[in-house]
């Protein structure tokens, strides 16, 4: 039985178990009393708060029921925040502040990357100038995402567009210059997949060069490195699937031992949803990809106990009603699958979530409306107790966001979490509403239907071979555009209440000047020239490790000292071939 079939069975079994607890709570008075004792304790568990308007509230909101069956359904079926199956939240407390407090740990993590490393570095410093907790999120440009050097044939126009250009570990040093990489309150995230092991190796090498070898074990951050969704949605896989998964597993193996605070993979639904998938498809493909990684790493001999807690997730949050509860369902299914199929301990049962509001829901016409769209999505994301969040800028349809709109996007999070009273005083303010429960159930059923279909095709990898996920996503994307065209999906300013006088956007477009692109190429040439005596030998060593089945990531940390990204991918292509794109 494939892992997905096992997960499906486990979820069905879990739901039956909850119903048993419900009837037992009603029929067995002793059990009922135990539950009620727990319930009372939970009610007072987080204490109370007096908010600035002088109202007194409990810090944790629970349903106003004392019926043992309903209490059992709550405690077993969704769990208190931080308790299995974590429907309400991964942690006991989230977003809460003390009524009079001035500072909070904001879940703000804004995605940035533009032009050259020093430009992005400047943007990073600007973004975090008021933050105690520095959480950087890095976007790379096209050539980097595809593992190419800035001097590769035909890519000049793409240098530094849509993300930062990075060719060598020296660029990596420039990118994070001035930040305390080993600091308790510093973490960095890197959105890169195909060449992820090479990029992380550059990060490690750059950190070592700056702070010495002891720094490695203190490095904290996330690298996306989710290859399966690349094949399904984002299209940045560069080596054949098997080889890509091996390089990934090498990296996971290495980081769980040597970089214990690193998250070596961010299992992502964002790109699946943005490529056009429905919310249910997003959740189903993301979770099934996640379980596939766990199976893969386990079968390679890694311990679930060790790598399980280092997995994290990244979801999209759009305007469809499913988003009222999507992440809640994901937390539940992940916890059940990890516990019951993989025997994972609680730390590995947590679906730790970063959310980004939907880019695709933002449109060019009357683009200031995008502020409203993002604000609604932010509310939905926080209703789902996301652990961190990126809110898109209103100029998203046009270009790399300008500082003005980035600032507004960051402020929208602060307004929601710090200014409004919705989340900061009480947990679960809206969680568990009747509509939310109904959406939850419908979404869960939809996800299980997808699991059964993927299982019928032989599991995630065979389904990929058969183009299952791609064809489903494409069909959904086509439907979505048709709905916009025929008006069944109203988009204000586009197919409804269109303001013809105000059609052309007055947005300043950020472009990387030619001279900067040339500077990047020149720097790369110098790097290559300076290291030319060592390059070939280092690449040969890397090739030997690849052929002999050694840990490629470990070797890459040395290779990047004298080889550029493109030189390394080039050699790896010779060893393992290229990925054949799927239509």
């Amino acid at each position: 039985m494939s892992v997905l079939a096992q997960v499906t069975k486990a979820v069905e079994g879990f739901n039956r178990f909850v119903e048993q607890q419900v009837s037992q709570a009603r029929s067995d008075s002793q059990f009922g009393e135990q539950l009620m004792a727990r319930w009372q304790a939970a009610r007072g568990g987080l204490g109370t708060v007096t908010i600035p308007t002088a109202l007194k509230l409990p810090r944790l909101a629970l349903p106003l029921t004392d019926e043992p069956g309903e209490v059992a359904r709550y405690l077993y079926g969704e769990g208190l925040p931080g308790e299995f199956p974590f429907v309400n939240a991964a942690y006991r407390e989230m977003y809460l502040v003390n009524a009079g407090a001035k500072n909070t740990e904001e879940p703000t993590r804004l995605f940035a990357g533009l032009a050259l490393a020093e430009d992005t570095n400047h943007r990073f410093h600007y973004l975090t100038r008021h933050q105690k907790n520095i959480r950087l999120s890095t976007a790379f440009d096209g050539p980097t995402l595809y593992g190419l050097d800035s001097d590769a044939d035909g890519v000049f126009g793409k240098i530094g567009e849509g993300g930062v250009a990075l060719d060598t570990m020296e660029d990596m040093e420039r990118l994070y210059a001035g930040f305390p990489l080993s600091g308790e309150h510093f973490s960095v995230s890197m959105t890169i997949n195909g060449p992820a092991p090479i990029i992380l190796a550059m990060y490690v090498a750059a950190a070592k060069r700056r702070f010495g070898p002891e720094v490695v074990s203190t490095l904290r951050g996330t690298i996306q490195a989710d290859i399966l969704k690349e094949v399904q949605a984002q299209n940045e896989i560069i080596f054949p699937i098997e080889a890509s998964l091996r390089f990934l597993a090498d990296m996971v193996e290495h980081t769980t031992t040597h970089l214990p605070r690193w998250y070596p993979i961010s299992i992502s639904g964002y790109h699946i949803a943005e490529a056009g998938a429905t919310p249910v498809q997003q959740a189903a493909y993301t979770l099934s990809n996640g379980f596939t990684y766990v199976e893969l790493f386990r079968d390679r001999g890694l311990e679930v106990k060790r790598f399980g807690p280092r997995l994290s997730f990244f979801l999209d949050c759009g305007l469809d009603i499913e988003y009222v509860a999507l992440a809640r369902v994901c937390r539940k299914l992940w916890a059940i699958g990890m516990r019951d199929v993989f025997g994972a301990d609680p730390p590995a049962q947590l679906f730790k979530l970063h959310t980004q509001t939907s880019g695709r829901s933002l449109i060019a016409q009357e683009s200031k409306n995008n502020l409203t769209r993002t604000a609604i999505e932010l509310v939905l994301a926080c209703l789902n107790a996301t652990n961190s969040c990126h809110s898109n800028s209103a100029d998203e349809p046009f270009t790399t966001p300008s500082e003005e709109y980035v600032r507004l996007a960051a402020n929208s999070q602060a307004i929601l979490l710090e200014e409004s009273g919705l989340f900061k005083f009480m947990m679960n303010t809206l969680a568990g509403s009747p509509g939310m429960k109904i959406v939850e159930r419908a979404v869960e059923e939809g996800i299980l239907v997808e699991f059964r279909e993927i299982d019928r095709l032989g599991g995630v990898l065979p389904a990929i071979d058969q183009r299952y996920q791609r064809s489903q996503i494409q069909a959904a994307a086509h439907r979505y555009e048709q709905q916009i065209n025929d008006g069944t999906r109203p988009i204000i300013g586009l197919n409804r209440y269109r303001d013809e006088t105000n059609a052309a956007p007055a947005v300043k477009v950020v472009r990387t000047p030619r001279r900067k692109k040339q500077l990047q190429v020149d720097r790369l040439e110098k790097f290559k020239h300076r290291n030319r005596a060592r390059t070939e030998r280092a690449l040969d060593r890397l090739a030997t490790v690849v052929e002999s089945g050694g840990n490629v990531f470990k070797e890459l940390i040395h290779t990047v000292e004298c080889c550029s990204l493109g030189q390394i991918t080039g050699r790896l292509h010779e060893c393992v071939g290229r990925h054949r794109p799927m239509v």
Partner: protein
Amino acid sequence: MKSKSVRFPDAAPRVAGTLSKRAATPTRVSRRTQLLKPPIRLLTAVPICDGHDSAINTINLEFIHCGVEVVYLGYHRSARDIVRAATQEDVRAIGLSSYNGGHVEFFTEVVELLKRQGANDIGVFGGGGGTITKADAAIMQKNGVDRIFFAGTPLSEIVKFVKIAYGAHRRAGWRARGETISDPDRRIARMLTAAETGDRDEGAYVRGAPAKGSGPITIGITGPGGAGKTTLIDELVLRFLKASPRTRLAILSHDPSLIGQGALLGDRASMVYSQDDRVFMRSLATRGQAGGLSPASGRCLRLLKRGGFDRMFVETVGIGQEAAPFGGEPVDRVILVMSPDYGSRLQLQKIVMLDVADIVVLNKSDLSGAKTAAVEIEQRLALNGRGQKLIQTVARRHRDTGVDELFRLAIS
């Protein structure tokens, strides 16, 4: 890993997907329908370092629904690859979808390269949502791009444009200025169009076709849908290009379509080694003909034979048990590609191509069931007593020794 996709009876599409190659159930083509106006052929692609393919996938689907034949080259494609493919496929126009910036340079590069190839009768159009500003579009159009579609354009408007701009006659390019086609690939491409459409106007360019020797060894590759035919050809191409640094190859590839309807010709998108100046590839839609080839395949093959290539591959669409596609065509060697999950031994008896093929390839021999399959197929071939060879391959594996063996046996 187990794949259940590959079954001989090709009635069912591989998955529910709209683009499945096995979705069409073709019927025999009649004389009358051959006279229908040929479908518009377009090439679509996403530029290098860009994987935003959602818009183009949607547009492709819309085009196909509206009767257009789309040669899709995929994402992350260089201007050179795009222009080479467009010239070889002799499409009416290239539709580009660009999101990762650098579009002014990229579109302009495509237009310039087309000119240099003497192929500026091929139009260029495209879009990229909000990333392409009105000002950018103005520059691009000045540089020779026909039209840029901005964010929020209804799909019907795009289709309407294509039908008007590229539906009627070729736009004036080299022909209007009375030049001759100097680029040999371009000439062959134009002749293939004439051969495919029977267009008298185009037919004029068949005269003066290059005739060189008796033609290259032509290898027909057939087998059920998803068996790995395209992957195998791409791997053979890689070996061929490496082994003989001067020679050139031609590939004639097929995808199913119904009469008068559109098609997605997607084989190029999944090929990596075949994107090379030494490879000439042409994609044909079957336009309603059953059995694996198109009504024009024979004509195109004969033309290509005179094109000065050293080897030729013909890939059929995924075929059913009873099909024997290469009957009357000038094909020298026939390779049947199978995968282990053909079903029961009984099914094997029914596969006509097992009698006809010169070489049988059992691909995906990494899958479970490959050993049994190999034994069963060997036994089946032994009954024929023709000394047909069975080769086991894993086309998807880099430097697979099975593919090496096939290369030695079939190609060199």
